[in-house]
């Protein structure tokens, strides 16, 4: 059920400001792809165009196309709500719903989509999702407690469980570990390795070591200056990008010479 993503000549704007210029790349199913690059290079913006979350911001728009499993998500008549049900997302800061218990947080996506769910099925979804997010053993005794009672790292895994509970094909992660300590980061990296078996994962990260550790392919983006759009410099196997990049800019960045 995992899916390939095709990005063709994509441009993304905030009002009159162009944040991403002419990006084309193809993401293989059941793989982890990392977007790296300096701040402001448009990698998060590009990620948000993949499930049409970019347009949630007033004035934001996109040209070009993004196909998920061969279907253009920007074609006329496509409901962004349905796109987002297939392409899930985990954010930089853990954002469990404060009014809901741990259990209800996991089921939030299913319930918000008005899908009917028996109590028994609900229990199944909760256990399966929390197990996949590596959180089950830590919270199985307190599913009724509020989601905000968990630690930051646990909250982020709860958000991952919530995202995979609706069984998307693709999982987008926008710097999911940048607000977490190293132990929690390790827990999330471990679980991502497991997620690759069933999902196409795209992750934006500022942590190059993390990109090198977990991803199959890496895309390096950069900007040529303030108020300039971000562009794709190089996209290749992670090992190639980190050991023998074809572009000088990539080599400088992964060696830590700038950014």
């Amino acid at each position, binding site marked *: 059920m995992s899916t390939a993503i095709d990005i063709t000549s994509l441009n993304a704007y905030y009002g009159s400001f162009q944040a991403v210029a002419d990006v084309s790349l193809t993401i293989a199913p059941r793989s982890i792809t990392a977007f790296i690059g300096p701040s402001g290079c448009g990698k998060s913006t590009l990620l948000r165009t993949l499930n049409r979350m970019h347009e949630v911001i007033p004035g934001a728009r996109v040209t070009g196309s993004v196909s998920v499993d061969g279907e253009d998500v920007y074609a006329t008549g496509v409901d962004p709500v349905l796109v987002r049900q297939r392409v899930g997302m985990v954010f930089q800061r853990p*954002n469990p*719903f*404060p009014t809901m218990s741990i259990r209800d947080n996991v089921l939030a996506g299913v319930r*918000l989509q008005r899908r009917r769910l028996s109590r028994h099925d609900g229990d199944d979804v909760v256990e399966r999702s929390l197990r996949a997010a590596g959180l089950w053993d830590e919270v199985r005794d307190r599913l009724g407690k509020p989601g905000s009672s968990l630690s930051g790292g646990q909250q982020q895994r709860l958000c991952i469980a919530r995202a995979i509970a609706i069984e998307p094909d693709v999982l987008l992660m926008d710097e999911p570990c940048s607000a977490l300590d190293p132990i929690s980061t390790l827990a999330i990296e471990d679980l991502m390795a497991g997620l690759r078996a069933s999902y196409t994962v795209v992750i934006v990260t500022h942590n190059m070591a993390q990109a090198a550790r977990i991803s199959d392919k890496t895309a390096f983006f950069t900007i040529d200056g303030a108020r300039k759009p971000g562009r794709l410099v190089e996209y290749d196997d992670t090992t190639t990008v980190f050991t023998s990049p074809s572009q000088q800019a990539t080599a400088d960045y992964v060696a830590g010479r700038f950014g």
Partner: protein
Amino acid sequence: MAVIVLDRAPTLTLTTRTVRRGRRAANTAATWVIGVLFILALVPLASLAWTAFSRGLARFDTDFLTNSMRGVVGAGGGALHAVLGTGLITGATIALSVPVGIAAAIYLVEYGRGAFARTVTFLVDVMTGIPSIVAGLFAYTVFSLVLGPGARSGLAGALALSLLMIPNVVRTSEEMLRLVPDDLREAAYALGTPKYRTIGKIVLPTAMSGIVSGVMIGVARIVGETAPLLLVAGYSDAMNYNLFSERMTTLPVFIYQQWKFKGTDVAAYDDRAWTAALMLIAFVLVLNLSSRLVARVFAPKTR
């Protein structure tokens, strides 16, 4: 261990000490001034509370709570009809203003863009400043045009009070909705949730605690209104269970009538006015306290 070198130490001379003494004196003086002003501000409040309590206690009995003023001349009688009227008119006001107010706030926070939203915000600001008697005249005019001149009813009173309460509800709800982090809206959208369900299931429940306590404080403010009700709800001595027709009395109007139209037994009228005042103050106090309780009940739990 680090050694801190105080190379400024020798300059701590008499002048700096004088400056310090001056600062301390200013601090003491300011503390006293603020303390005295605070007590001065409390004097009228304490005096009012004490007067209402001591004078209101005389008739704070079961008769007062179980009788209307129907056929009562002189001593006896009660304010049951006014308590009922207050309950009905306040309830109707809440029913009219809360949906409109919350809907307007949702529009302003979640949908409103550009000139129209700015106009709505401006009009809400203007409405906040409407004198209550003008709201009364507006309701009087509306009901006179529809039902004929001089039509009085509890509903007309509720309409007038709604005009006063709606801007209040819009303002507090708007603030509470803006406090809901965008992270939560984005989280819901990213789960494939339509906007209206995100608002209904995530944004409103998260803001509910603040909205409910805001509404209760709004109620506490309109429950003491007198002028518009004198105009459009009028005054009656008897029970009126029907919001839609005939005059209806509320506690503030009852107080006014008792004080204004004293019979021969002046003390009996005064006593009833004070007891009604005591009830009104107690009711507002209870509303304020319960708004805190309700805020706690609805607040997102953290443990």
